[in-house]
């Protein structure tokens, strides 16, 4: 058995930043990741990181934009903290070596992003996530910690309401391992692969969130799923909001710049849920293009000129050319909304603490809540670093004073027994098939536009899939690098989270931010200005509610 004081599960920006804080606080830290850290999904983030450092900008403006963007579900005290941390966070990352795009005077360049009243998104061409991830990994490499790479998390060990460690499957050796720990930080990112069309990487299966949920942590606001308006039609690959920030425009099949009807003031730079709904509506009402991959609209960059497109949006050019066969310099890009971000996750406070002692969470896997019902572009990269740091500090402080973890030799055996039966079955369900059906179900019944009937049907289907999952079978008998096992673990995790999403969506009879009910089209502050909490029970999630924290901003109607 292995022992560490703090175990961070997930090695993207949030996990690495948490590890850095914990190491700097003098703790023995381990990072457990299903990928090499540089392969984490943080690296796919394109557009930028927000900080109100511009002369004519203000932290209050950033706070207000975030509060409004959240459709007033974000906790304003957390948002105030978050926006105040933004400047120092960006400076820290620059000092760590991040190569940002610069203005002529040597300062950090900033560009406009959706839902922001001011160009405050700091960026590194259109690969800001990659730039930050590399710089942080390189900086972290100067510290001492242990990396367990390509380990799949299977269980959190929780006894009497506190964490005692984790169990994970070491892919390279093909063995289950137990790591005893005083504190665990969950930073495993999103679970976008619950949906069929997503910008997320294949690795985004919510393993840490599901494990935390299984171990008694409350999930918060799971029904709030963000769809990014401009995913490449066929693949869902993200075309960054930065393309619109640089002047890209959306057109329907009649050549109309339709955002003028939905967001007359800011057009394409309205917040993501507004633009996503606009595109879906255009297609549903017959004004979109049609094709073998479904309806879509055009994102046009041609008018920006070859030089601007190729220098500022280089990765976009590559994505379009390689993955859609389109040259954005001369042709419009076919786009349609794709699942992109989960506002919901493991419920935490500003310090990354969950309701389980010794368990912390940060990044997209967590829900503080900063983003409330809808996230602004540029706030996610910021979130990973701000709350990664907080969770790391808190986990380290806890680990310093906590008693040693209690681990029993039988833990490993009993925790992994169900998984080991998957191997010995001669008959059973294929995890890929279950996963594909789950993805279709979520796309069809729990998408951008929701209603009671669809949600009930979605719930029924997810539960049927869960039942079938109890008979899942792993065919691949080799232990080493067994992706069949990984598939099965991931599918099981996703089915749990899918259920929490559908339940939360079904219960919330209003429309707010990214959650749109055609049968309850209005925001209902009187009944629904509250966070959804989901607790796992033997019969599925039990929902309860928690109030939203206010400081200075009264909820208003949200118009762009």
């Amino acid at each position, binding site marked *: 058995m292995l022992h560490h004081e703090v175990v961070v599960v997930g090695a993207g920006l949030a996990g690495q930043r948490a590890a850095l804080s914990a190491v700097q606080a003098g703790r023995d830290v381990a990072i457990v990741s299903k990928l090499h850290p540089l392969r984490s999904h943080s*690296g796919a983030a394109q557009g930028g990181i927000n900080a109100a450092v511009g002369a004519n900008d203000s932290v209050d403006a950033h706070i207000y934009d975030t509060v409004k963007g959240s459709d007033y579900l974000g906790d304003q005290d957390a948002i105030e903290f978050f926006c105040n941390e933004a400047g120092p966070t960006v400076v820290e990352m620059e000092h760590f070596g991040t190569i940002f795009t610069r203005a002529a005077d040597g300062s950090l360049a900033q560009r406009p992003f959706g839902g922001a009243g001011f160009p405050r998104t700091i960026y590194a061409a259109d690969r800001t996530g990659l730039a930050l991830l590399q710089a942080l990994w390189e900086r972290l*490499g100067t510290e001492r910690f242990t990396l367990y790479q390509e380990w799949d998390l299977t269980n959190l060990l929780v006894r009497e309401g506190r964490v005692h460690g984790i169990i994970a499957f070491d892919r390279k050796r093909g063995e289950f391992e137990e790591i005893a720990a005083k504190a665990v930080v969950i930073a495993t990112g999103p679970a976008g692969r619950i949906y069929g069309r997503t910008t997320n990487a294949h690795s985004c299966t919510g393993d840490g969130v599901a494990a935390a949920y299984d171990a008694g942590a409350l999930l918060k606001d799971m029904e709030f799923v963000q769809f990014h308006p401009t995913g490449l039609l066929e693949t869902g690959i993200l075309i960054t909001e930065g393309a619109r920030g640089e002047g890209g425009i959306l057109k329907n099949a009649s050549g109309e710049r339709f955002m003028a009807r939905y967001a007359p003031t800011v057009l394409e730079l309205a917040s993501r849920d507004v633009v996503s709904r606009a595109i879906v509506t255009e297609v549903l009402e017959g004004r979109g293009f049609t094709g073998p991959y479904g309806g879509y609209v055009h994102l046009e960059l041609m008018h920006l000129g070859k030089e601007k497109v190729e220098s500022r949006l280089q990765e976009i050019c590559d994505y379009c050319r390689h993955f859609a066969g389109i040259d954005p310099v001369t042709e419009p890009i076919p786009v349609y909304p794709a699942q992109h971000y989960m506002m919901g996750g493991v419920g935490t406070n500003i310090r990354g603490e969950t309701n389980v002692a010794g368990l912390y969470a940060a990044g997209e896997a967590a829900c503080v809540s900063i983003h409330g019902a809808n996230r602004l572009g540029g706030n996610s990269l910021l979130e990973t670093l701000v709350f990664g740091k907080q969770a790391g500090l808190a986990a380290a402080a806890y680990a310093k004073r906590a008693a040693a973890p209690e681990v029993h030799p039988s833990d490993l055996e009993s925790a992994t027994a169900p998984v080991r039966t998957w191997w010995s079955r001669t008959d059973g369900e294929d995890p890929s098939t279950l996963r594909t059906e789950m993805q279709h179900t979520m796309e069809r019944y729990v998408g951008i536009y929701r209603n009671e009937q669809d949600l009930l049907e979605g719930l029924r289907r997810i539960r049927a899939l869960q039942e079938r999952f109890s008979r899942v079978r792993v065919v691949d008998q080799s232990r080493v690098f067994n992706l069949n096992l990984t598939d099965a673990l991931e599918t099981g995790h996703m089915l749990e989270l899918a259920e929490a999403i559908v339940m939360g969506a079904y219960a919330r009879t209003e429309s707010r931010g990214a959650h749109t009910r055609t049968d309850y089209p209005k925001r209902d502050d009187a009944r629904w200005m509250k966070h959804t909490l989901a607790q796992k029970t033997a019969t599925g999630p039990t929902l309860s509610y928690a109030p939203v924290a206010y400081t200075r901003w009264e909820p208003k109607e949200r118009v762009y």
Partner: protein
Amino acid sequence: MPEPTVAVPFEVYRYDPGRDAKPRYQRYTLDLTPHTPVLTALLRIRAEVDPTLTLRYSCRSAICGSCSMQINSKSRLACETHVGPELERHGRIVVEPMRNQAVLRDLVVDQTPFWRHYSEVEPYLKLDPAHPMPEGKPTSMTPAQVDRFLETPRCIACAACYSACPAVEADAGFPGPMALAKLYRFAVDPRDTAHQDRLLRIQPNGLWLCLRCHLCTDACPKNVRPSERIRDLKEMAIAVQGATEQGSRHAVGFKESIRRAGVLNEMQLTRRTYGLFGLLGQLRQGFRIMRKKPEVIRRPHPIEGVEEVEKIYEALDTGPEARR
């Protein structure tokens, strides 16, 4: 109307060292549209035909660097390689793991040496306590300074360059193109205070083993052009330290030989590169070649217009090692 599909034959390297006596190639055929990425095809094989086929993958959008492998003998990303052109050129799609890295299973290789070479170039900013970064503010960096990084920030550590490199294959002491391109990135970073030290340390540690064969530049999916950055490092290293390594002595010696005569003086260059002692070690080989090719020791006549060459050197060869 759905696009037309064609039957695409795959031959995929399969090897589980713990269970298989030796590697084999397994055949699969799928009906695919021509612009389907190889990665998509491999994942379909996993989902529909054979869940034991093992590979690394994640983002499917050429940013995570996981899915590098050999496709029809070229090291590249599977997510960015489309079946149509491969089928046209080769009639089939042969998929194998990357080279120069031990196979862990099927298409998954051990990247430990690759990561170790990367960390050995100390890829982090080295700061000087006497010149700390500005307190509470980002450092100032002009767009021209950012341009100097060229394309090196685009590297996704996919290891296609490392897989393609003949020097990596032949010599465990060669850091490989990615690590050296990373070194370049730090050697031009205005915030780093150890440029000279980096150039000094990389010289005996493999810089001059680069063959400048450009296989890495051709393999790189992100246009990092590592071989060209390595060339830059060589010129920078000579500027910092002069000609102290065998490799830099040879380059500078060659340069001087052309200055004098406009053409190469092989004997003189050999002496310059190896020094008198080293030359003794080359004697046997030298005699062997001389027997068939006596011209090798001849001192060539200077070309017509050699004075033009001298003037060009005067104008452009102004580094510290330039000899007069």
